[in-house]
């Protein structure tokens, strides 16, 4: 697959091509057609390596690596599945981060990475469940709340042909039955509840021998040193415009995992490496943007807001900001607030918007952005939608995306301009590049 290294040495380990839509220039939109929970993993700027293999028994990691395309990530794999046709196989692969590809690592395949510093990862994971009879009887190895077994690299890599069983890296029988959407919803509820009472960083397991010499598996949860409590930081003077500081699970001094479990579909915008600036204000009528900015912590993004909401106490108030990407906070832009970003090159934007329907119970997201040219200061006064979309709306949106993806369609994103009709009344016109 283009510049991706071959992974066939380990059964089931593979690359999957993400569905990317052209967004002008080097930029692409990557929709994730799902309402399942997912994780954003950040690794800080200092040299980052886990230093040991991690093995999931119920989770298939589906990793999109985001970072400078000239960076090299080194991945180490070992197949620790009992009965696998490629059991015991080891593989090292080198690749550059790219929004085009998703690395899929089956449960039971041990993995570790070097070179993750300044790389953010979106993990759109899949979950597999144990055999129901074993699960109901409590006979499975899987721990839903700590689905990561750690295996020292040295132990696995020192394993020799014909070595005694006790000296070998352990073998596992991972879960094999795909979970339902119901299970994903329950999992999201558990995460929501757990994060609200977060006192420890993520749990992991280690093997250790007790006083009698028996091998015991320990589940360790380090106490979180700080973390980030969920809180709202208003951005005056525009009412409702704010940052949300969100909790995350620490995985190191400058690294962490932020679970997103709100159940709304999301998409990523890869802005490329060339200069990227919006050349018009964007204004939504039916969506509050929830934007998480990923990328180098020393990048600087500029944004200019203008309140264009009919009836707003801060109508036509303006504010300009500068900020740096951070995975653990989200910028919330209310619908009707015009926004224009510059400095987005080398930055990835993850949007998990909240939709609102109009008085007819309708909303068409694909064309819900009015492009207001920079330099026109006769800012509009706009009526925004006010009915919060329910679960059925998001289900239908995901279903539509999945159908479109299945056809191989990759429509470009539109421009929407406001122009006068024959009677001088403003009309919105959507313009797309033809495929």
């Amino acid at each position, binding site marked *: 697959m283009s510049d991706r290294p071959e992974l066939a040495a380990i059964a089931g380990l593979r690359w999957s091509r993400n569905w990317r839509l052209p967004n002008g*220039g080097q930029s692409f939109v990557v929709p994730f057609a799902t309402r399942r929970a997912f994780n954003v993993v950040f690794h800080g700027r200092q040299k980052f390596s886990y230093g040991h293999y991690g093995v999931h028994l119920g989770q298939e990691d589906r990793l999109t690596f985001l970072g400078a395309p000239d960076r090299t990530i080194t991945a180490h794999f070992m197949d620790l599945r009992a009965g696998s046709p490629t059991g015991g196989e080891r593989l090292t692969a080198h690749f550059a981060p790219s929004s085009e590809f998703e690395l899929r690592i089956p449960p039971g395949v041990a993995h570790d990475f070097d070179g993750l510093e300044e790389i953010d990862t979106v993990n759109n994971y899949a979950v597999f469940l144990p055999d129901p009879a074993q699960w109901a*009887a409590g006979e499975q190895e899987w721990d839903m709340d700590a689905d990561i077994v750690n295996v020292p690299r040295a132990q696995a890599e020192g394993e020799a042909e014909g070595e005694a069983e006790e000296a070998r890296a352990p073998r596992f029988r991972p879960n094999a039955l795909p979970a339902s959407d119901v299970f994903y919803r329950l999992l999201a509820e558990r995460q929501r509840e757990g994060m609200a009472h977060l006192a420890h960083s993520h749990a992991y397991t280690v093997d250790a021998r007790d006083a009698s010499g028996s091998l015991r598996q320990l589940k360790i949860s380090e106490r979180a040193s700080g973390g980030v409590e969920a809180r709202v930081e208003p951005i005056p003077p525009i009412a409702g415009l704010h940052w949300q500081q969100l909790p995350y699970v620490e995985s190191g001094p400058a690294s962490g995992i932020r679970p997103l479990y709100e159940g709304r579909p999301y998409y990523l915008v890869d802005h490329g490496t060339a200069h990227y*600036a919006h050349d018009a204000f964007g204004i939504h009528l039916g969506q509050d943007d929830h934007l998480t900015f990923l990328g180098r912590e020393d990048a600087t993004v500029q944004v200019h807001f203008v309140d264009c909401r009919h009836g707003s106490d801060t109508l036509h108030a303006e504010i300009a900001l500068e900020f740096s990407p951070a995975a653990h906070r989200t910028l919330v832009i209310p619908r009707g607030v015009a926004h224009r970003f510059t400095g987005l090159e080398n930055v990835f934007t993850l949007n998990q918007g909240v939709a609102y329907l109009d008085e007819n119970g309708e909303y068409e997201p694909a064309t819900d*952005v009015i492009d207001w040219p920079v330099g026109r200061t006769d800012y509009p006064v706009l009526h925004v939608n006010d009915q919060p979309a329910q679960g059925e709306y998001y*289900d239908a949106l995901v279903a539509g995306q999945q159908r479109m993806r299945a056809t191989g369609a990759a429509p470009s994103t539109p421009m929407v301009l406001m122009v006068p009709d024959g009677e001088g009344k403003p009309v919105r*016109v959507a313009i797309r590049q033809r495929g």
Partner: protein
Amino acid sequence: MKKETSRKFLSSLYRDLPGEGDGSFDVAVTRLIDTQGKKAVAGDQALQSLMIHYLTSDPKRATQGREISAAVAGIKMAAVSAFTDTFPDADLETLIREAKAAGHHVEVLG
């Protein structure tokens, strides 16, 4: 907990209902019933409560939905000024004509 409720509870967690033909599923359901009242599946009573709530809610909700062809919600392209520079101060008819002539698809939204 009735056996049918347990069956629904357990089977709803799986994308594809496993092993009903070989009896293992019934074994699992029987064991599940045996554990109820003291501890729930995966040791989590809350999980079961949520599950039952889901099962007793309107099942039609999962199949309802409007046909929405949109793939993405309101994403801006980095090409707007190039277009407005090319067609400054265009009225509706001019914009549609010129945009189509330039190879774009145009949709009037109202």
